[in-house]
């Protein structure tokens, strides 16, 4: 400590001498130039670098103060000087040959104009520091607030789709409030799958949650802190990802820091990158500005399954309705299959045939196909968004209030979503040195009913329609209560002895409601104190809090809940961050710039759940936890984690041409065992403006920046994973029992480690009309924390271990061009392209660990190294498949194709070979037209719709070989394994196709697709029209999203992510994605 202090004194002494010597050298013949620097609106600009250099004389340099005032000293009277004004974000300004006269009358007023050229673009980087893009040595890509707002997506994450190279967004479904999955540069981590690979979301410096809190029908709470409890029960309703509900209207800009390099300062949670969101603060507004935005949007399904319309309900071509219960064998009136008679309009007794009041006999009606069952059921989704903001600022105060109301009705009848967002953002310069900023956002969102999903869920809309008899007129289902039942039994054509086995979709939509109400508050209070001109202290405290109250109802006679069901689930989450940051930016030397920051952070996260289920209702249709016909199932969980950190960063710049950054951070995590709970991670990056350095800069060659970065990031884990414990649950007879936790922890777990590096360049050519930015990155994760899947004989499902090694490398390319640029017309093109390659280098083969199952829903997501019949990459699916012999012939036994499902085979990898997008912007006078194409090449998608739909005989793939009556036989092509001869056993068509198509591999497709993601036309009213009104600006725009899809995958949109977005690449009967058309009006007063 003593020696440190000595050094500090020494350096100060040295600095003082330096300044003194410069001053004393030129003291004698001095004249000076004083002046002010303002922006175009007349606001003073602080921190403008003012410099001059005349032959033989040294450089004079100063910086403008709070009021924009600068003084250049030591100039020779009577001489002419070029004076250059520079400020990040503004165009350089030069006063050529300014004559310095004697006396004090050399005053200069300069107005700088804001820089719009990409060359001088500024970006927000870690800790919210705004920097010139050129000084950043790692990959950052920024999306402007206007693009985000104009996309009018309900889920914020979707607006980034196709906008940022290397960022993959997967939308889970077209349902209201649906989740989106976001991933940057592939999967670095294994435990807990996708949500552990989500980037960190930071709003105005404060991390906010992007958790996806799921409620399952078997309430068990959350087991994994960063990951909802996927294995504890089957999720059925998507409650959205937490970052999706930030109001796009409040966003000034989004910066995506892609690699761990960029993120080293945010701590381990940022090792998958950071999405930095800066909200509008009213700063820079002049006079009261009111902005009103109104948007209306209509959504229809982008792609629905192609059903077959040739055969109706039944089996082996036979069907007749008796009572829907199968009491008469061979009539097949109680089965959910379309393997029945041909739909030729022949007269058949059907469920919705009228009953002769005299005889009580059903009167046969024509057996015909109803083509638009699903289309007739689904509605046009409507979204209305109204947003109002008021902003103002003066030299001391700035503020912005905003309010947005969103109301949405979904494609599925009786589903809705509403959201009210209220934001306050204000700053006040209390005294010249002390500034206080406050940002608070309150979001209330909720729904009376969200549609349910899932391929095992009888209430999933797509599943109900997949099994719906093709001959059923959907209108006959609209009165969904059985008339005589007194609203206790639904009207459904298919029963077994005890009730419905197939739900009436209207019954589900109007009676089985999944509601929620969620309050969220996030924001921060920040104080900034200028200790000296070059030393600043910032203290900030921020919080993200939400409480979500959910109710799930299942009415009596629901197929899975014959006696009704009611569940409540309370989700509580809070994260608090206290930060302190000391920034030092001395002016050391004309050639060198230096700044450094030292900070600390205290993070505390608490998550709570409280839930109860009445598994059977005593009184039908009364939804109350005390109306329980059976003992309540209830539970609660509590999880807490803290991380304390200190961090520091320093940057040295040389002549605005070379910048070197170093950072370091040390974390202490409560979730790690004491011996391993402190970990340090460093990073360094370098940016070189080679074009300036080498003197290449010219009209045609505007800039070449080379950059490189390296970092080492460590990561902790969810809490309570270091000590073994017992789970106390309800067991035998409803009594309390205990079982040893199936997921065995590890007392010696170490933090995971990602070492990564990246390098790239950014170049601007032809008057900045062509820009190319390329990044290559490589990362290696070691000490992976994996809940290793054990075999059942080991007793435990998983055991937490540090095993294995995984690498990712890839490339990101951003190309921007302006083929046409004139006063009235311009055309801009932006291209993003990226690929990522993942490799599971090793697991722990020496300890017998060669495969790790991450998630299984039919197809199984597993990590296998290359030597275990796997492809050695993360994101690979394994599953069962048909057995072909060595000669490529399909093997049969008793006429049926043989399937292997003991040792599962490789199906494909869900991660695309590459993803890309092209955006075009055309501007003609006040008109603007833009469109965005986005897509992916490669990767696979596994479709449950395909398998179940063919099994049910509802998709056209099931048609071949059915005869005119709907029966028919197939002799499968291939070999009979018992005889070794070609198969010659004929079996019924239905039975054959059902075994042929009932395997995972046959339903796994190449997921390549191209989408017309966005088309937008906008018109800005000319200023001259508005001159005499109070309106400062007005615009109208039309927008379409997800308009077209090109892909070879049958029946579904390949861009899917099953459940609530956690299982990318698997389709499990989520609602189809939506195509939107919208219009919005924006008026500013």
């Amino acid at each position, binding site marked *: 400590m003593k020696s440190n*202090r000595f050094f500090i004194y020494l350096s100060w002494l040295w600095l003082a001498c330096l300044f003194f010597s410069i001053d004393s050298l030129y003291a004698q013949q001095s004249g000076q130039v004083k002046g002010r620097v303002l922006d175009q609106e007349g606001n003073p600009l602080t921190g403008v670098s003012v410099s001059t250099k005349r032959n033989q004389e040294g450089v004079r340099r100063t910086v403008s103060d709070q009021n924009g005032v600068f003084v250049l000293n030591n100039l020779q009277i009577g001489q002419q000087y070029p004076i250059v004004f520079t400020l990040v974000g503004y165009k350089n300004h030069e006063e050529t040959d300014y004559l310095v006269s004697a006396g004090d009358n050399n005053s200069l007023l300069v107005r700088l104009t804001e820089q719009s050229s990409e060359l001088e673009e500024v970006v927000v980087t870690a800790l919210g520091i705004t920097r010139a893009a050129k000084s950043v040595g790692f990959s950052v890509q920024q999306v402007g607030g206007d693009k985000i707002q104009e996309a009018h997506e309900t889920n914020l994450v979707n607006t980034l789709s196709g906008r940022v190279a290397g960022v993959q967004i997967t939308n889970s479904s077209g349902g209201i409030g649906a989740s989106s999955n976001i991933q940057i540069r592939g999967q670095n981590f294994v435990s807990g799958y996708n949500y552990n690979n989500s980037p960190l979301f930071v709003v105005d410096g404060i991390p906010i949650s992007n958790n996806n809190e799921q409620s399952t029908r078997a309430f068990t709470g959350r087991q994994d802190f960063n990951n909802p409890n996927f294995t504890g029960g089957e999720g059925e309703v998507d409650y959205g990802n937490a970052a999706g509900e930030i109001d796009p209207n409040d966003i000034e800009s989004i910066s995506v820091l892609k690699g761990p390099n960029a993120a080293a300062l945010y701590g381990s949670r940022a090792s998958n990158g950071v999405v930095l969101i800066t909200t509008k603060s009213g700063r820079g507004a002049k006079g009261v500005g009111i902005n009103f935005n109104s948007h209306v949007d209509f959504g229809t399904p982008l792609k629905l399954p192609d059903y077959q319309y040739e055969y109706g309900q039944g089996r082996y071509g036979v069907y007749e309705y008796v009572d829907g219960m199968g009491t008469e064998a061979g009539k097949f009136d109680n089965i959910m299959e379309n393997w029945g008679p041909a739909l030729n309009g022949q007269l058949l007794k059907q469920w919705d045939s009228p009953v002769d009041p005299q005889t009580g006999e059903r009167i046969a009606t024509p057996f015909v196909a109803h083509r638009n069952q699903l289309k007739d059921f689904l509605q046009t989704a409507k979204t209305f968004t109204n947003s109002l903001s008021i902003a103002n600022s003066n030299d001391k105060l700035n503020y912005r209030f905003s309010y947005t109301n969103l109301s949405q009705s979904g494609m599925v009848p009786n589903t809705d979503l509403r959201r009210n967002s209220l934001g306050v953002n204000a700053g006040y310069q209390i005294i010249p040195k002390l500034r206080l900023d406050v940002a608070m956002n309150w979001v209330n969102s909720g729904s009376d009913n969200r549609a349910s999903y899932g391929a095992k869920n009888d209430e999933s809309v797509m599943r109900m329609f997949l099994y719906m008899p093709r001959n059923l007129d959907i209108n006959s289902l609209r009165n969904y209560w059985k008339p005589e039942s007194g609203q206790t039994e639904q009207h459904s054509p298919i029963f077994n002895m*005890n009730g419905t086995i197939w739900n009436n979709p209207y019954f589900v939509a109007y009676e089985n409601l999944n509601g929620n109400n969620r309050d969220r508050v996030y924001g921060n209070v920040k104080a900034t104190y200028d200790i000296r001109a070059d*030393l600043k202290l910032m203290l900030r405290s921020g919080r993200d809090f939400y409480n979500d109250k959910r109710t799930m109802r299942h009415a009596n006679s629901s197929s899975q809940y014959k006696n009704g069901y009611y569940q409540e689930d309370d989700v509580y989450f809070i994260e608090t961050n206290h930060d302190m940051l000391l920034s030092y930016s001395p002016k050391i030397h004309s050639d060198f710039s230096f700044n450094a920051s030292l900070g600390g952070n205290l993070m505390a996260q608490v998550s709570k759940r409280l839930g109860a289920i009445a598994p059977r209702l005593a009184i039908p249709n009364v939804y109350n936890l005390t109306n329980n016909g059976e003992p309540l199932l209830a539970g609660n969980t509590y999880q807490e*984690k803290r991380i304390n950190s200190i961090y520091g960063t320093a940057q040295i710049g040389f002549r605005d041409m070379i910048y070197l950054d170093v950072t370091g951070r040390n974390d202490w995590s409560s979730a790690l065992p004491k011996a391993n709970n402190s970990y340090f991670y460093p990073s360094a990056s370098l940016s070189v403006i080679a074009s300036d350095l080498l003197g290449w800069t010219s009209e045609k060659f505007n800039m070449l920046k080379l950059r490189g970065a390296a970092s080492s990031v460590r990561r902790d884990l969810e809490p*309570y994973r270091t000590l073994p414990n017992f789970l106390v649950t309800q067991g035998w*007879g409803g009594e309390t029992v*205990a079982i040893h936790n199936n997921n065995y922890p590890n007392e010696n777990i170490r933090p995971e480690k990602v070492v990564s590096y990246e390098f790239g360049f950014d170049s601007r050519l032809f008057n900045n009309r062509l820009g190319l930015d390329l990044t290559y990155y490589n990362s290696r994760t070691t000490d992976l924390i994996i809940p290793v899947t054990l*075999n*059942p*004989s080991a007793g435990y499902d998983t055991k937490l271990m540090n095993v294995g090694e995984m690498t990712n490398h890839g490339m990101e390319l951003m190309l921007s061009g302006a083929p046409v640029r004139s006063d009235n017309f311009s055309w801009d093109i932006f291209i993003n392209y990226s690929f990522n390659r993942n490799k599971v280098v090793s697991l722990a083969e020496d300890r017998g660990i060669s495969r790790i199952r991450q998630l299984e829903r039919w197809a199984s997501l597993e990590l296998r190294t290359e030597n275990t019949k796997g492809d050695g990459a993360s994101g690979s699916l394994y599953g069962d498949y048909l057995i072909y012999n060595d000669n490529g012939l399909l093997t049969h036994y008793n006429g049926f194709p043989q399937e292997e499902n003991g040792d599962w085979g490789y199906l494909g990898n869900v991660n695309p070979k590459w993803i890309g997008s092209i955006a075009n912007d055309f501007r003609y006078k006040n008109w603007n037209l833009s469109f965005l194409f986005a897509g992916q090449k490669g990767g696979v998608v596994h479709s449950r719709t395909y398998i179940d739909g063919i099994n049910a005989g509802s998709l056209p793939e099931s048609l071949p070989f059915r005869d005119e009556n709907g029966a028919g036989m197939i002799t499968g092509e291939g070999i009979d394994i018992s005889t070794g001869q070609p198969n010659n056993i004929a079996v019924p068509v239905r039975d054959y196709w059902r075994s042929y198509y009932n395997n995972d591999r046959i339903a796994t497709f190449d997921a390549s697709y191209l989408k017309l993601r966005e088309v937008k036309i906008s018109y800005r009213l000319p200023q001259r029209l508005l001159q005499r009104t109070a309106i400062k600006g007005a615009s109208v725009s039309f927008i379409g999203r997800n308009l077209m899809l090109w892909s070879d995958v049958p029946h579904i949109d390949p861009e899917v992510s099953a459940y609530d977005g956690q299982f990318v690449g698997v389709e499990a009967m989520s609602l189809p994605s939506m195509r939107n058309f919208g219009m919005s009006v924006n008026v500013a007063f």
Partner: protein
Amino acid sequence: MKKYFACLAIAVLAFQSCSDFEDINVDPNNPAIVPVEMLLPPVISGGANTMVGSGRRAGQYVQHLAYPGGSSEADGRFNLTGASWREEWNGAVRLIKDVNQMRLLAEQNNQPEYLALAHINKVYILSLVTDVFGDIPYDEAGMGNVDGLEFPRFQAQEEVYQRMLEDLEHANKLLAELPAGVSVSRDILYNGDLQKWRKFANTLKIRILMRQSAKKDVAQHVTEIFNNPNRYPVFANVDDGATLVYNNSSDFYAWFIRNPSSDGSGVDFSDNARVSDVMVGLLENGADPRLFIYAAPTRNSFLANASDASKELEYRGQIAGLSSAEQQELYERTGLKEGDFSVVSRRIRRDNRAFLMTYSELLLLKAEAIQRDMGVTGHVEEVYQEAVNASFDKWKQVGSQPQIQNPYISDSQREAYWARAVNQYQPEKGLTMIAEQYFIDSFLNGFEGWASWRRTGIPEIKTGPSVLASIPVRYVYSDNEQNNPSLIEWVNEHMEGNMPNHNVKVWFQP
């Protein structure tokens, strides 16, 4: 300047002082230690559930039950793989980790009574597993928490049985040495009666010994137990039997009791599990009153009888192994309909009991031992008759409801049964009669009925015409287990690298 650095230093120190995180990282909801008895109910019910689950798997192979064609294509027609028995393996072997925890806690707390129960439960659960799967891990099962034992070593079935006998011996000794008055809590099987647990341990020993009797001379051991009731008390009456009474509709027999219909039948006619024609045939042959316990009247005869009491109730078994088309063909040929076959009866559904091991079973094993001259004292005819009576006694009248409401076996039915010559013990076909009784008594205990059939070949059962393979004689290791490196090594060393399929016999089977 100095003071800013001082501030910073203070802040850093403040962080340091907070870094004692141990307390934060302790789960407040789930404890590190629990009273040992808390572990007992899930272990007992888990073992029982494993057995109950076998009712419709193994119980279908041995044709206790049969499914109408097409409704259980994979099982009934033996289209089987490792995925078919996933839960049978996974559910059972995973229980062992809690048995191990019970053992550890009992040792820590010096509670030998719980230690003994841990031994018995481990043996019971894993005996079900080894009976059907063959070679399994025993010594290292459920110890994945211990470093180095993540992939437990497999052991030959013969060795596993040997280790089980040792553990049961140990349990018998522990229980014998207990001071008087010691009991256990939360014992859902015997309500804390440790003497009955001791009898269960020794009776289980008999089952395990007799199981291997075709492969190994077990006479000495069997005799030692039967002839030393003081040292080896075994079941002495029906109430000693290991019978778990399910007491909650959310518990496991739900398969049978779910959705009782409102037609007054007390059964679920839409239940696809029918009583098989083999079982119905055997019972009808001897005019056995257990027919009315096991099988419900057919739906059609029940409804006819309800409206017109003069119409006779009918009982009919389902033929196993039909395809959907063959079932249709059967309906057309016989004029019978879906409602003309019997499902499991109301008494079984209502009682909701799981028979882990019965007194009757013990007596039948004893009769067999006597018949096979193993040295066990006793008269085989008497033991046989007592065994069948013990099986009847499981179905005594409860309450005062008439037989039609809640079937039971009356004394007159019992007398009528024994009045028939065909039901008298005939030594020349004694082993067959014993095995047939074993088959009947073990109804819905698929494991036991199937194991007995695999050992004795009795009763004679035929496969349906439409099956894809011969009757399974083994469960295939769960696909979740098949990548266990220890299993792969075991298979390479002992089975020439071929993972056994369902037609490869396990060791005990002759």
